[in-house]
């Protein structure tokens, strides 16, 4: 267990460092840009205002509000203090709601949608890929082109196509939202049913785009393992096929878990677009309204939250990986 503890603390340290770096990037990137974000916001706020002193007053008010006249280090300290207190300021597009309030109302939807969808897509994709490698023949010949095709449709394209087929043409599912527009969130069975019905299309569109790439990866991993020497040796020893397959898929699985940890950022990005197309009330849609409304504080907070969620997912996967892969223990014991 000592080896595992070392591994855990090493990963935890890496997680903390990445978190801090992501945090700094989130703060510093917009400020490195040539354009003045405050000027952009003021230009939007002062649309139609002809009075130059009025515009100037708004500008100065915002400069003070965002404290962009202070040195960068001091700004950063203020920012850190505010974020630690959980204060992200006011949303511009949805004033007078605070950014906190907007994020709090959308983060639950995003977690409830993306987390299960990515897991289900990953499991289904891997199962199909492993089956294709093991069964070969027609199953493989059918599944592989389909997977290649699926993995080449961009996330937003898949969402739009599913929207048109299942919501607009067949009318099986509603076209947008997280629940009926005429409902107030409560615990009644009607509301729960409405949430379930609205959940299906965004969920399955994320699952479908996840399946393709995973199936392809798992298939080639499993084929590689099936041809490995230890499989032949095990066959010579007369070990049962079932037992061998267990070994094979466990070995083929490990790179897939690493792959999931490495590509979860991309997947989350794709899933955000599924939310946007279906106007699902999660962070993706919040990002869209924020970007269309020039809502700087909201964009900054949403991107930070998404980054943190991704980092936590990667961290959790690496911890899990340490449990599954015996080589991790061996490496730490050296």
């Amino acid at each position: 267990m000592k080896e595992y503890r070392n591994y855990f603390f090493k990963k935890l340290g890496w997680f903390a460092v990445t978190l801090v770096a992501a945090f700094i990037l989130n703060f510093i990137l917009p400020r490195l840009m040539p354009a003045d974000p405050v000027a952009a916001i003021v230009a939007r706020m002062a649309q139609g205002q002809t009075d130059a002193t009025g515009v100037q007053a708004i500008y100065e008010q915002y400069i003070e509000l965002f404290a962009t006249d202070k040195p960068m280090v001091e700004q950063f300290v203020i920012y850190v203090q505010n974020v630690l207190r959980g204060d992200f300021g006011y949303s511009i597009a949805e004033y007078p709601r605070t950014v906190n309030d907007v994020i709090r109302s959308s983060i639950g939807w995003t977690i409830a949608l993306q987390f299960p969808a990515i897991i289900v897509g990953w499991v289904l994709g891997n199962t199909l890929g492993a089956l294709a490698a093991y069964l070969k023949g027609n199953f493989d010949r059918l599944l592989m082109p389909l997977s290649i095709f699926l993995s080449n449709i961009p996330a937003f394209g898949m969402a739009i196509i599913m929207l048109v087929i299942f919501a607009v043409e067949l009318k099986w599912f509603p076209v947008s939202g997280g629940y009926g527009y005429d409902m107030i969130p409560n615990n009644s069975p009607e509301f729960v049913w409405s949430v379930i019905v609205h959940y299906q299309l965004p969920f399955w569109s994320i699952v479908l785009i996840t399946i393709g790439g995973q199936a392809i990866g798992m298939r080639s991993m499993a084929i590689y393992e099936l041809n490995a020497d230890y499989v032949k040796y095990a066959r010579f020893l007369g070990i049962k096929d079932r037992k061998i397959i267990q070994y094979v898929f466990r070995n083929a699985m490990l790179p897939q878990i690493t792959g999931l940890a490495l590509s979860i950022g991309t997947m989350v990005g794709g899933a955000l677009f599924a939310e946007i197309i279906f106007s699902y009330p999660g962070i993706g849609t919040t990002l869209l309204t924020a970007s269309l409304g020039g809502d700087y504080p909201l964009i900054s907070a949403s991107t930070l939250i998404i980054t943190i969620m991704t980092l936590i997912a990667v961290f959790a996967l690496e911890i899990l990986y340490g449990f599954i892969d015996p080589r991790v223990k061996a490496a730490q014991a050296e």
Partner: protein
Amino acid sequence: MKHLLGQIFRSGKFLFGFVIFMIIMLTVLIYPLLVEYPPLKTISRGTFLPPGIYVNVYDSMTFSESYTLILDNAATKRIASKLNAEDRQAMKEWLVIGAELPEDEIDVDDTAKLIDLWTTNFDPTVRLPGMTNADRNYYIRLTASLDGLLATEGATVAVANEDTGVLEEKYVIDQTTYVNVGEVPNVRVLPLGTDNFGRDVLTELIKAISVSLTIGFVAGTVATTIGLILGLVSGYIGGIVDDLIMFITNLFTVIPSIILLILISFSIGQEKRGAFTIAVVIGFTSWVWTARAVRAQVISLRNRDHVNLSKLSGHSIIHILAMDILPYIASYVVMALILQISSGILAEAGLSILGLGPRTTEVPTLGLMLNWALIYQAPLLGKWWAYFPVILIIALIAFSMNLMNTGLDQVFNPALRD
């Protein structure tokens, strides 16, 4: 080199992808030579005109010779276009409930009788139970369209006299009058209709493909260059430089690149976001995978004998990297470039959907076209021509590039061959 190219083009996957890509490329190159419409010109009043051939009615009346064709089913077709099976059924339903006629007396296939029954019995003021306003308007529209449906005479075109304002008969158009489309001076073919701004979708799409491919190419080149240099330096020099570069690379691997893109594009501001700027920004956020892979390969190469020999001969690091290591990973870099181009196109599309793409006035891109179609709710309105061709093209470009990549992979890595 010749042998290698021969091998590459013998790979079925590569060839298939290459052909798809070349078809797209050639269309993009040849179409503007044949059709010289400006891609962003608004040509229609009203939005989302459906695909088809648009014939100028005025010209076909006045400037063209008219022909008489006696076709048997002309009248049937004319009636069917105004009164389809659904309309007939709806009329029957109304007559049964609203006018309380016995159901078996109404024959929906006997047009003359049906219209007769309808004109005598239909009353727009009657409200049936469960009828919405939309239903009511539908029946009123239907009634209006029935007017003159069974007429057999032609129509007369009259022109107002310039001096007196009195209408004077100018042409009589019989029901058997035809014009030859080839003789009408103003015919515009809109194979994909028009978009929400009333622009020709096909012309716009072709231009958008070329701009998007350029964006992808610039983004891919920037990303591959950065990734290659960082990977080479990190893998070959090792030590603290390697640690530092790997730290940055790992950092950018876990932070979703779309997040960085959103932050940067938003901060650049609408005014300064040109297609080229966006391409460079995309390149700067998507080099991590190339850097990782190049580093891994360089590490396996750096202790080979020929590299050591080069080192002993006193060659500089740059010389060693360029002459002794780069040739071994060149094939990989080409494959990475292909993937980067296709993911650059996807990234632009994603950014544009968020409204953070290139500014909208100068050039169309695939992403901007999707963005416009989504903002104007084309998917919900059933205007497939505004969004489906765009998605199809994006998927085809990604598909062809992936196929080429897989094909190259099999040529360069014999272990992967089936």
